[in-house]
Structure formats: structure tokens, C-alpha cells
């Protein structure tokens, strides 16, 4: 079960099971958010993502907008302009049509906001008990402009780490209404498409090295992946990481680390220090980047490891979450 949590166990499943089993057919597969495929006359980005979030409706969104925005953002993180999406539904027999209608409506609305078209799809129904109401898989295609090259491996010592806004909102919003854990909070999911923000960042002409959206596993998982892929160390300044008070409180209560909590409308950018100011300026002018801020930097030391300087001036290792986040007892 932990193999779907976006942490170390997920990565192992891909590296040790899927890629070896796929063999030569997956020889070109990378571990980025989207694959970049050369075609006559240009480059396409291609990605796919499945949504199984429970509950299906949560403050700020539904499984439907999440399915659209998740795939749009995977395309955006390689710098692509998203064009078209496919939608595939696995429905459990007995799922309320009203719920399905609400989810589909949210998908249409999200696609409209993102400026992508839903061009093909598929629906399967499984016996009651073989699924859990609604699972959605979306795949997406986008186009890349010449010269755009965003890859975690490009991160290098001297880069600064920028996050686009407040962290932890989606994860806390979903937890707040999960069965058995209902707690009152004003936190709503941040689910949103990010390609507009990415376009604004790239338009500055800055040599942005890498972008990732810190979804499952949060900022901790994303930065560990980048540090591992690029063979660099990353140092964070914990006081500069934007965690809203409501998120900090909920995490304190549940014993969760806000840095490991999921986001659905935020990005992390690895940018050479000389370009940081103009990228930040462009981000601040965009609705999805108003809260953008530098939270740390890439360093030569401790390659593959993410370290945070704490509010008190100590340091701690920011670990890759192993699997599902489990509330601590004490």
C-alpha cells in the first residue's frame, strides 16, 4: 500500500519492477513528470496520471479537477504547453450518477480554465467491491518550444530553490474530511493549473534548470528526488518555507511534517542564483505565484541529501517519506 504514497517505496516499484519488466520497450523512459518525445518538426511532452483520492469531494476541489490539473501540471513541469487530455474512468457498480455528474462537471470546468481539450476517453464498470466508486486516469499531450530543457538532473550547486506559494494546503484539506479524522479547518485544496505560471517564468529568458510540482510526498519527496537525480546537496532555511498557520497547526496535531504533505497547485523551481530575481518578479505578477519565495539552495556538500536549517539554528535531514504518511502516536 505504501507503494503508492509517492515516497521511497513508489520509486522502488518503478525502478525495480516496472522498468526491468518493460525491458527494451522502456529504454528511453525517464523518471521525470512527463516524457519528451521528438517528432517531425518539434517535440511533444506526454504524461499520464491516475487519481484515486478519497474522499472524492474535499474543500477546494474534487477528484475531477485533480485529475485534470495533475496531468496539466505534469506537462507544465517539463515546460510544455498542454493541448489535449484523455480521460479514462473505472467506475464501481452502484456509484451515484449525481456524484459522477459532479465530478465530470468539475473536469470540464478545470479543462476550460486550463485551456486544454478533453479529446478522447474510456469508461469501464467493475463489480461492486472490485473498485472504490470512481478512479480516473488522464493522459496528456503538450508541445515544447525550442530550447526549453527542464530536467531535475540539470540542478547544480549555486541554484536557488524557489517555491511558488504556501505549502501543505491540499494534503491538509483532504485529511480534514477523511473518514474518522474530520476536523474543522478553513484550509482548502490549492488544486490549480500551473502552465501559465511556468510560461511567465520561462518568458523572462532565465535559464530555469528544473521544475517539479510537490504533490504526494510534498516538498520533502520532490527535493530528495532532485538531489538524487542531480547528485547535489540541498539546503533549506526552514524559516523561509511558507507554511500557513492552519497547516502548521493541523500537522502539529497529527504529528505530520508539513514538508511531506501534498500540494496540487504549487511548483518548485531550481534556478541559477543570477536569474533568481527576475524569475521571482515574474512569478509575483502571476496569480499562481504571488507567494513565490526562495527557500534554499543547491550545494556541493552531502550529495543526494536535503538538509534544513531549523528556526532555532540547528539542522535536520529532510527525509524522503517512506510510504503513506502515518500519524504518530506521541
Amino acid at each position: 500500500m505504501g507503494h503508492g504514497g509517492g515516497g521511497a517505496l513508489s520509486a522502488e516499484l518503478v525502478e525495480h519492477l516496472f522498468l526491468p519488466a518493460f525491458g527494451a520497450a522502456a529504454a528511453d523512459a525517464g523518471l521525470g513528470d512527463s516524457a519528451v518525445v521528438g517528432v517531425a518538426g518539434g517535440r511533444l511532452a506526454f504524461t499520464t496520471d491516475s487519481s484515486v483520492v478519497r474522499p472524492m469531494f474535499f474543500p477546494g476541489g474534487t477528484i475531477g479537477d485533480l485529475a485534470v490539473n495533475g496531468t496539466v501540471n505534469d506537462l507544465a513541469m517539463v515546460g510544455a504547453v498542454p493541448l489535449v487530455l484523455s480521460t479514462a474512468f473505472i467506475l464501481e457498480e452502484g456509484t451515484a450518477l449525481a456524484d459522477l455528474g459532479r465530478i465530470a462537471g468539475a473536469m470540464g470546468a478545470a479543462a476550460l480554465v486550463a485551456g486544454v481539450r478533453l479529446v478522447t476517453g474510456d469508461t469501464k464498470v467493475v463489480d461492486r467491491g472490485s473498485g472504490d466508486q470512481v478512479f480516473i486516469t488522464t493522459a496528456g499531450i503538450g508541445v515544447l518550444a525550442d530550447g526549453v530543457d527542464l530536467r531535475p538532473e540539470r540542478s547544480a550547486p549555486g541554484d536557488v530553490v524557489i517555491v511558488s506559494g504556501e505549502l501543505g494546503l491540499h494534503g491538509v484539506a483532504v485529511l480534514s474530511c477523511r473518514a474518522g479524522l474530520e476536523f474543522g479547518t478553513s484550509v482548502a485544496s490549492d488544486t490549480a493549473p500551473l502552465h501559465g505560471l511556468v510560461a511567465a517564468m520561462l518568458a523572462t529568458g532565465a535559464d530555469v534548470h528544473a521544475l517539479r510540482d510537490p504533490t504526494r510526498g510534498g516538498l520533502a519527496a520532490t527535493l530528495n528526488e532532485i538531489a538524487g537525480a542531480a547528485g547535489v546537496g540541498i539546503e533549506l532555511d526552514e524559516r523561509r518555507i511558507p507554511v500557513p498557520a492552519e497547516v502548521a497547526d493541523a500537522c502539529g496535531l497529527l504529528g505530520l511534517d508539513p514538508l511531506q504533505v501534498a500540494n496540487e497547485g504549487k511548483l518548485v523551481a531550481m534556478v541559477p542564483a543570477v536569474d533568481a530575481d527576475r524569475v521571482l518578479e515574474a512569478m509575483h505578477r502571476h496569480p499562481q505565484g504571488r507567494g513565490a519565495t526562495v527557500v534554499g539552495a543547491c550545494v556541493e556538500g552531502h550529495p543526494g541529501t536535503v538538509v534544513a536549517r531549523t528556526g532555532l539554528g540547528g539542522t535536520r535531514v529532510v527525509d524522503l517519506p517512506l510510504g503513506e504518511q502515518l500519524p504518530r502516536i506521541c
Partner: protein
Amino acid sequence: MRYLEEFADPDLARRLLDRIHASVTRPWAIMEVCGGQTHSIIRHGIDQLLPEEVELIHGPGCPVCVTPLESIDRALAIAARPEVIFCSFGDMLRVPGSRQDLFGVRSRGGDVRVVYSPLDALALARANPDREVVFFGIGFETTAPANALAVHQADRLGIGNFSLLVSHVLVPPALAAIMESPSCRVQAFLAAGHVCSVMGTGEYPPLAERYRVPIVVTGFEPLDILEGIRRAVDQLESGRHELENAYPRAVPAEGNPVARAMLRDVFEVTDRAWRGIGVIPGSGWRLSGRYRAHDAELRFDVAGVRTEESPSCRSGEVLQGLIRPSECEAFGRRCTPRTPLGATMVSSEGACAAYHRSRRLEAPGPAGG
């Protein structure tokens, strides 16, 4: 009040640190008893800010770490039964038994659920009268009152399909056991604040006296911990050995009388095995005679499940502060967070897992897990 921020104020922390630095004249080994304190120390990097003379030894107060393998195996046996809904706090799911963990039972079809309160498990029992609902009652005096309340309510409301698998442990006997060890290095304790908020402070002055050891009841936020350390160092430097309460905003001397009355009614003291340490006399609770009908161990007849610890796991010595995790031959080799031999490598606040994380900073190269 921005409670969490105020008790992590960097300026006040600096002032406490300055006072600790100013007062210390020689090496001292202080044990923080509770896993929550260990977590906070690591989380905020407090250990690196202390004078090098002050060594913090991570104590046995992590319920995940000390729950014996045998209890885990009993839980696994019960959870695998088709009629059972097995409820647990989340972080017990990954603790390895002798062959698998609760995640493994769940993926083989066992109905294992994470709940956030034993009362949620009780509600499940009411909603599923045709199933047996079992709650894994582990932890110290802190988690015990809610478990006691759940059993008490089940009894009062006649909810016969609810039972508790009890593996409760008690702090004061463990402190005594640590001090009795011939190779004990502990010179002062930061007592677990939340345990004392339930039980009060009355159990500790006799321990402080008998073992001539300072005991400071300490909270969990950075300033709480620094204040606890400051007072412990003060006592050590001035040759005192007293009970002090550095967490009065949560700990009245008498504790929580309502909770204590409930505990006296529902539980009775018993000998209890601690993972890696062994049996400590009078160090646990089991259900009292009146509530025996809700004892999952009897209901599912798992008392016969007996398990030995891995002989190569030295977590018991780690939990008592006798060795550092890195002195264990298996550490970082056969035993990593992915392949833990003992629970101290499982829990994020376990001493071995904490060492394993921070070690990567000192030894560049491939991280072991």
C-alpha cells in the same frame, strides 16, 4: 495564541542556550524519556546547539519502539482473522513482527484500519455488530485513559464485540530498571510531560531520592525542552537530585484525577516485556478482572503466541543508552529504515532511525536506505 510559534521563539531559545552554556563545567548525560521529546530534539536540531559537555540519550519512551515483538505477532494473528476489524494508531502498521507487519496483513485481505482514537473503534463496533472490533491498546500512561474510557463505555453500553489488545507500559518502573543497570550512564532524566499530565508527579520524588538522580518534568516544544535541560544541568552542577516541574502549564502535581480514577478501575498493574529490554516487573497494565471479557488476548486465545527477538538487534542497549546506534554491528548494513531489525529503526523518533538519517551528513557517499 500562536502556541506552537511562541514556544519555538528563537530569541528566547538563544537565551536559554546561553544560560546552559554558562552553567556547564563538565560532561553530563541526560536522558529524555519520551519519544515525542526525541522527535522535537531531532526536528529542531536542539542536540547540535547544546554545549558538547551535554549529551542527550534517547530514552525508551517511544511506544512503537518498546512494544514487544510478541505483542506485534499477537496483533498480526488477530488481525488476520476474517471476522475481525483490527484498529490501530497509524505508526504501528509498519512495525515488523517476526514475519510481516500490519500492512502485510491488510494486503492479504485482513481488515486493518487506522483510527485516531479508540472511541472511533468503539463506534465501529456499534456500527458492525456482526464483526469483532479489536483496538491495539499500546503506549504509556498518555494513551491509556482513552483506551480505558473505550473499554468502560463498551462495558456500560453492552458492546460485546469490542475488545482491547493491551500492551500498555509504565514509565516509572522503566526509569528504575535503567538506573539499576550496572552499566547505566544516565545522570538526569527529562521526565515525559504528557505522562505526568495524567499521572501527576507523585511517583518521581522517591526515584530521584533512591537513585540520587535529578528528574525534571519536561514538555515538548523547543523552549520546553531547553528549559528542562537547563534545570537538569543546574541540578547536576550544584549536586542536587530533586523532582522539578518545568511543564506546569500542563502538569498539576496531582495529574488528572478523573483519568486516574478511570485507569484504576479499568486496569491493574502487571509485569510487562519491553522490546529489546525484556520483562520489567510491574511495568505494565492489563485489564482488571471486571473488564476481562473485553481482553482480546483471551478472546482470541493468542496468549500462546511466543516470539524471540532477533539476536542481532541491540535496540535494548540503545534504549537504555548503553550503546550508540552506530556501535551496533547491524546498523546501516543489515538494519536500515527499509529493512529494520528492531523498532528503533522503524519509528521516525526511534534512536536508530534518527542516527541513520543524520549519519548521511557525516559520511558522504551512497546513503544506505
